């Protein structure tokens, strides 16, 4: 019988301990907790929660399976539409998606859908013996090659889906490692690397070739792919170009973009002695911005041993774009918040390194386009805060490389690639796109959703082109 009451808390590593390590913060439900949480679900006939999930997982169906102790079955149910459940269960902004529409959220706390998804995925990974080989649906399609640009969640999803159908797929990735933002951006205390590695291996096990160190647009171009062996190309190059403030002193040393900070630590492991990439441990770090990237930068700064870490944000707490859970986690770990504060310029020392920020106090005025109240500077409110490290975490734009090297590719004025929403096809026949490269910085699950649509679009395109009718 379903019942009300609060949801099961996620067991966590103690804050004092976890700021000294990079191990995962959230520890995951036990079997008992998972079943207890599953019991809260009302198994609603109209399944309102499903509409909130960008890949339409049949949420009550998998939760019913957890209730009945069939955890592996639950994982299989999720995998029908989401090939990366262990990742989504961890990093989806569930409170904005599936859980927001859960009937229980109206009166109290929604079912912990993401937590249950994570539980089922982890259970399956821990208990499945040999990975059952997946047979392609239609081996005849193997003669058709599809190229995927970028090995982030969008690219991995397209590749996995097309390989399952039977196509031969090659992923070309610019960096020396796979995963995109999942590896260089999201820190391992939120997404352990072995989980990411496992998902990438799974995609490879479907027959997908992954070739790193290829910068499409430079090593060769999209057009070369179409001319030399590939029927179709999917561009999943993400939104990797950091936004900066454009104020005085921003290029002083000691000022990093969020991407640089996270890449040094997550990808290059600069904080560890045996790795060559350098980093300086901050005495006082200020992180500008209050989105998920900013929280990740701040919490990472705490973990590498910074004495003090402060988030500087121009609006108030209720406008902070990061997930509530991440803000709480950051505060528990000792990150300070300095709200209604906006940097005006950065001040350097005699060596050209940042030593302070001149800030302005802000107050909230009328709502702006985003519906949030617009921050307005208070006249003559300048004041100085000390900082030997500044991390500017204001988000990312699409990287212009593909756009500037692919003739005929139509993009938005801000750089996003324009596609047909139904098929994922761009203005060039045979070239598809999805994920952050199309939407600007969004979410892992929306990138995957876009990948699914494009996989169908590519399948249809190749079938039509070659008059293939077989199922």
């Amino acid at each position, binding site marked *: 019988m379903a019942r009300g009451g609060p949801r099961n808390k996620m067991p966590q590593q103690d804050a004092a301990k976890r700021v000294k390590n990079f191990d995962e913060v959230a520890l995951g439900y036990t079997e008992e907790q998972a079943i207890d949480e599953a019991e809260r679900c009302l198994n609603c006939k109209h399944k309102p929660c499903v509409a909130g999930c960008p890949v339409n997982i049949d949420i009550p169906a998998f939760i019913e399976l957890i209730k009945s102790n069939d955890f592996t079955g639950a994982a299989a149910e999720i995998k029908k539409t989401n090939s990366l459940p262990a990742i989504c269960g961890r990093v989806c902004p569930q409170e904005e998606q599936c859980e927001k529409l859960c009937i229980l959220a109206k009166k109290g706390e929604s079912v912990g859908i993401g937590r249950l998804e994570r539980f089922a995925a982890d259970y399956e990974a821990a208990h499945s013996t040999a990975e059952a080989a997946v047979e392609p649906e239609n081996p005849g399609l193997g003669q058709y090659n599809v190229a995927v640009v970028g090995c982030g969640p969008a690219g991995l999803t397209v590749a996995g889906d097309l390989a399952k159908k039977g196509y031969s797929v090659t992923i070309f990735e610019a960096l*020396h490692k796979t995963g995109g933002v999942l590896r260089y951006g999201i820190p391992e205390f939120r997404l352990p690397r072995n989980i990411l590695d496992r998902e990438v291996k799974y995609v490879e096990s479907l027959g997908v070739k992954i070739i790193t160190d290829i*910068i499409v647009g430079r090593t060769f171009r999209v057009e070369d792919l179409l001319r030399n062996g590939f029927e179709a190309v999917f561009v999943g190059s993400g939104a990797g170009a950091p936004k900066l403030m454009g104020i005085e002193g921003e290029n002083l040393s000691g000022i990093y973009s969020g991407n*640089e900070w996270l890449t040094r630590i997550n990808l290059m492991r600069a904080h560890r002695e045996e790795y060559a990439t350098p*980093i300086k441990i901050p005495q006082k770090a200020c992180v500008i911005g209050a989105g998920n990237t900013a929280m990740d930068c701040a919490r990472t700064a705490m973990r590498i041993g910074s004495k003090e870490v402060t988030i500087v944000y121009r609006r108030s707490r209720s406008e902070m774009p990061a997930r509530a859970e991440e803000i709480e986690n950051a505060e528990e770990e000792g990150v300070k918040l300095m709200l209604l504060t906006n940097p005006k310029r950065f001040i350097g020392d005699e*060596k050209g390194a940042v030593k302070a920020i001149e800030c302005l106090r802000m107050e909230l005025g009328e709502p702006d386009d985003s519906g949030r109240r617009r921050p307005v500077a208070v006249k003559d409110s300048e004041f100085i805060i000390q900082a030997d490290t500044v991390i500017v975490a204001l988000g990312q734009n699409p990287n212009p490389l593909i756009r500037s090297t692919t003739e005929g590719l139509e993009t938005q004025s801000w750089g996003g690639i324009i596609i047909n929403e139904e098929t994922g096809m761009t203005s060039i026949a045979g070239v598809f796109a999805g994920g952050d490269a199309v939407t600007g910085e969004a979410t892992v699950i929306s990138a995957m959703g876009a990948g699914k649509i494009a996989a169908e679009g590519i399948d249809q395109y190749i079938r039509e082109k070659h008059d293939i009718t077989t199922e």
Partner: protein
Amino acid sequence: MCSKNHGEMCNLAELTPDSLKNTIVHKEKLSPVLTLFEIRAPLIANSAKAGQFVIVWTGEHGERLPLTVSDWDAANGTITLIFQEVGRGTIELGRFEVGDEIPSLAGPLGQPTEIKDFGTAVAIGGGVGTAIARPVAKALKDAGNELITIVGAREKSLIILEDELRSFSDELIVTTDDGSYGRKGLVTEPLKELLDSRKIDFVVAIGPLPMMRAVADTTKPYGVKTIVSLDAIMIDGTGMCGGCRVTVGGKTKFTCVDGPDFDAHEVDWNELRARKAFYFEEESKDRQATLAGGDE
């Protein structure tokens, strides 16, 4: 890549990680601190242009190091890198031998140098910068310029590529700081004489920061278009991190995607110097440790 290594693009769908091993086919010590590698990298050899670079990663604990493509041979599918062993990364790279595979090599990156017939062009290489200046000088000559090449180094043993540069330059001037070879003094002295004595239309300078800055100061009063290739600290080399940013003409640029070539008269040299020196302590410590662990 197909087994033939030929220059044209072959079926890209046949590429596999194994077919793209970056094997070192030739190694040469050009001087006590300068090493040349010829590396199998057919895709890069096929698309490289003068002024572009690659990013080399030496393995799990390594850094991503930007190195200019000093030469390339599309027919053979190889590229040439020439690097100076200055710190942990380049010292470790110098320990690779013929037959070894470089774990990761990506490129070509950056904007190619703008090459056209300017008239009379001066190409200046300082130290290892000479290796980078070579393809640019060659391309300038091929484009029809009258080419004067100036090569400078601290002392005789550090002068590289002299014969080759002489073979395609209309004039070659060599300087050493200590006078052990060629003219004694800095590259800016013969440069100034040239500017005073004839019409120079274009100058490109590649070398240590103080040298490039001195060249910029020398040509500025003459109003001669001067290009430098900046070596900002990089990580990804693809425009993702912004670590390589420089101020040029008052605007922020990313060296790896907007450069590495910039108008020498517009570069904020003090800022670049500061950003390059930021990790000096960490680098020195690493360098000592690498040299000490050298014989393992």
